[in-house]
């Protein structure tokens, strides 16, 4: 079973994402900010990461940049999932190594479509 790390400071979003991704046969791990996510990745590198942008302690972009410099950190497929929905933010995320980008609000179909796009399902 593939593991997906859901990184979001909102417990509601984490719960919604968990429900959708579990239906897609992912094993779910959760983190509340970039720092927690990085610690998780150092222990267990997930197959996929659903990543919020704005979070306390360490934001999503900072996390992604650090992750891509970690040992094996190039492996996880990272899908941003954020309310930041302008071209400049999207372009920055892609440059930092994001594989796909979801603009909130999202639904099941969007998550499925995006995960399909990057070959996760």
């Amino acid at each position: 079973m593939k593991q997906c790390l859901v990184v979001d400071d909102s417990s509601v979003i984490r719960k919604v994402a968990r429900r959708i991704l579990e239906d897609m046969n992912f094993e779910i791990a959760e983190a509340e900010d970039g720092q927690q996510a990085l610690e998780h990745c150092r222990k267990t590198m997930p197959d996929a990461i659903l990543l919020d942008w704005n979070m306390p302690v360490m934001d999503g972009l900072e996390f992604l940049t650090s992750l891509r410099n970690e040992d094996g950190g190039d492996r996880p497929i990272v899908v941003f999932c954020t309310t930041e929905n302008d071209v400049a933010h999207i372009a920055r995320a892609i440059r930092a190594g994001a594989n796909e980008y979801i603009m909130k609000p999202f639904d099941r179909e969007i998550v499925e479509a995006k995960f399909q796009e990057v070959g996760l399902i």
Partner: protein
Amino acid sequence: MSPSEFEFLKKFLKDRSGLVLSNDKQYLVESRLLPIARTSKLETLSALIQLVQRGGQRQLEIDVVEAMTTNESFFFRDKTPFDHFNETMLPALLQSRSSQRNLKIWCAAASTGQEPYSLAICLKEAAAKMGGWRTRIVGTDLSQEVLEKAKAGLYSQFEVQRGLPIQMLLKYFEQKGDMWQISPSLRAMVEWRKLNLLENFNHLGEFDILFCRNVLIYFDQPTKVEILNRLAKMLPEDGYLVLGAAETVVGLTDAFQPVAGKRGLFQRKSAASSLGKTSARPLFASSGTGR
């Protein structure tokens, strides 16, 4: 919604529209039918389905069928037809039309435009191989309203996130407030016409590729046959017809023949017979080929 209510709804939709609802589509039923329940002052989805089940609610029945069958169109919907386009149709036609350098595509159920624009994106991506080529994409639909939307090329954040890779969004769209608009150079590639497939469409001219996905399912057998036979006259012998993933010509007409191993892809019979030398393929298959 109970399992038996869902079963009823499945059968009801199949009988009325040909729509096949799979068991994993419960959420779709909820998102499409709850608004109808609300406007009908019904508290739950169950109450709505029971009312339909009881019979005699003509308008409600129509509303339910329309809500469930409205072709919500995605960019690169179902993906496979666009793979066929890039990997099969385009290479073959680039070769066979290399002297004329002219390629004509008709989307016969263009709806809100995602399909023709997806094809326009494919052509843009193939531009390096198509220097000096003239292309024409015609999108038709029977609804003026959806054509207006198609022409404007303005899509919501939800619409641009289904099927469209983020890189393509950045490359081919411009952000307009809350909406995303397909770029002017792509909009200029598509012509829009109001057209009912039941009426004569000879005036559109001849095409090399014809997309007609998920629209024949709404017609009865004799009408399907009649439309397919008229569509065949719009294509040269080596032209392609693309139907929806669940649709086929088999058992309906001899004018087209499935292309082996390419689900949803068909050619005029005589052309298909002379092509496809690479694989053994039954000429009169009673079930789909190339599964």
